[in-house]
């Protein structure tokens, strides 16, 4: 029975992966055909810049969720990284030292999460809700409610610019490189297999020679590092360091990952689906915004998609069960 169950579950997830990619393609085609200005190269640049933080944070988040944990502190890490960047820039530090420091800060914040979850064995949901508040609070302590602007134009121009005279935004390189790195790690290395093994059964993974604690710790470090990078890119994109940068973004990231067919219970998921989830979320929001739907009303779409992404496969499965 259990083998059968695993088989149907596996095919269900494969189906969902194909389905989400198909839905994304359909949405892109429909939006390009019906929404004015959606298909323009200028809008493509905006779309990529808009999904940039969600896209890169969703990559390590996928690995974290596949191990059965969660990291809700990512948006606060982004905010703290941005605030520290602004603070150091105000102290007349050179941007060449600030950026590595912000990345290091992100990694340290991730390590703090990892310490609480793996060394102290506390539930990651509670830990990262705590650090969500802690890191965002520290961001406000560092920068207050002021904003720091006037970052060097060469850096801000690179983030908002395109490759040569092509319409391809520079930041797409970052997304693609990170996606390939995390994709290869998850789907083609022993680390990736360990991630799936830990998510399916931590005890079994331990007996098979995996050290779940160490694995999760480094995944949290990766999650923090990428969130720190997202903070730097966010600051440069808007040329504005603020303590509330990216507030609430963690929900959109989790929504994109779950939409991509990753099971919140761990053990199942694939990176191509997650990337499709990010593109679907981003292009839907972009298309609706071009159609003059208010930003807040877009929340309805995000919420419905999030629930539907888990409910849909469940209901389909149940219907199949009834038919049999």
């Amino acid at each position, binding site marked *: 029975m259990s083998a059968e169950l695993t088989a149907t579950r596996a095919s269900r997830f494969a189906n969902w992966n194909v389905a989400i990619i198909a839905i994304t393609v359909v949405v892109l085609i429909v939006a390009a055909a019906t929404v004015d200005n959606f298909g323009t190269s200028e809008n493509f640049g905006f779309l990529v810049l808009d999904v940039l933080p969600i896209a890169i944070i969703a990559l390590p988040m996928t690995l974290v969720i596949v191990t059965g944990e969660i990291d809700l502190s990512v948006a606060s890490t982004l905010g703290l990284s941005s605030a520290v960047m602004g603070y150091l820039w105000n102290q007349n530090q050179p941007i060449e030292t600030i950026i590595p420091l912000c990345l290091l800060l992100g990694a340290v914040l991730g390590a703090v999460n990892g310490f609480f979850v793996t060394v102290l064995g506390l539930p990651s949901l509670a830990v990262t*809700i*705590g650090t969500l508040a*802690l890191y965002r609070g520290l961001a*406000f*302590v560092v920068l207050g409610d002021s904003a720091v602007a006037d970052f060097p134009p060469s850096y801000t121009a690179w983030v908002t610019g395109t490759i040569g005279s092509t319409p391809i935004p520079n930041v797409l390189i970052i997304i693609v490189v990170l996606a390939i790195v995390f994709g290869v790690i998850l789907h083609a290395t022993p680390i990736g297999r360990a991630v799936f093994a830990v998510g399916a059964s931590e005890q079994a993974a331990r007996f098979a020679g995996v050290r779940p604690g160490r694995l999760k710790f480094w995944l949290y470090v990766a999650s923090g590092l990428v969130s720190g990078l997202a903070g730097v890119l966010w600051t440069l994109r808007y040329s504005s360091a603020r303590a509330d940068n990216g507030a609430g973004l963690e*929900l959109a990231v989790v929504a994109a990952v779950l939409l991509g067919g990753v099971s*919140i219970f761990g053990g199942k998921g694939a990176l191509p689906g997650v990337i499709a989830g990010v593109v679907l979320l981003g292009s839907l929001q972009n298309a609706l915004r071009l159609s003059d739907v*208010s930003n807040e*009303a877009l929340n309805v779409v995000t919420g419905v998609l*999030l629930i539907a992404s888990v409910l849909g496969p469940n209901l389909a499965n149940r219907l199949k069960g009834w038919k049999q």
Partner: protein
Amino acid sequence: MTAVGLPAPRRSSLDVVLRARELGIVLALAVLVAVTTISNPRFLSGQSIRDILLNTAILAVLAVGQAVVVITRNIDLSVGSVLGLSAFTVGTLLQNNNLPVILALLVGAGVGVVCGALNGVLVRYGNVPALVVTLGTLYVVRGVTYFWAGGSQINADELPSGFLNFGNATLIGIPYLVLLAVLVLVVTGVVLRSYRMGRELYAMGSSPQAARLAGIPVARRTIGAFVVSGGLAGLAGVLFAARFGTIDAAAGTGYELNVVAAVVVGGVAVFGGSGSVWGAALGALLLTTIGSALAVLEINQFWQQAIVGALILLAIGADRLVAARVAASLKKRGSHVS
């Protein structure tokens, strides 16, 4: 691990631990109040205490509902959005319309009950984890409120004076909002502690599988817990409207974080099965008092959120230690039996 169905001696030892857990918050609260008052005696003035209690009332009503859900090993992140929808509904209903307060309370709670039932049905029958469902409804309910309200705002001068009085008036020196919050707390606390229905919620949180095998109507209880949480969030929306008088579509944004913080700091375990609504309410009181104390001590307000975060980590860390010690002592005591 809970007291449900365990023999008497174990129950009492666990009771002591739980009581000690709440004692910890009371001590923290006492130290905080003492230190703040020594540095600035105005902290214990009538107005200051009244403000703290009024702000606690709203957070405590939300925390009680959240505790009920968390005890069943679920979570309800949609409470801030439900509060906003309820506040705006009640505001629109009462706008230039002199309706009785009791009607406002019922309508607000009704809005919340509908949202809670939706959450519960999706969790139970949709087989979707509570974290995902309520994250989704957090977005959806807030979005619906924005669709409806747009950029409009309801101001205090458009609300009936009777309703605003309810938000500020007192009965023998105690504000109505506080009385209502205490009533909610006592009723929920007694049901959870002494009634079969309440104990079944703990049993479900301790071991969902065992609860089902023991014949507990898990579906009904799960949906019931979400209905309670939703209904109380709706009620909190009415209190919010009465207290502040100004309502727009953003009312209650981000409250879910404070509510979860209050519950966790109050000693309700995120994996269900233990904790009490008394603890949750004390957690709400502690968080609100910290906010006021920072203002009185002239510490940068920006520290508040960081302190809340640190408190959450401290609380779950402490609970972990206590749980490990209890487990060890239970093992020792039970060794001759098993």
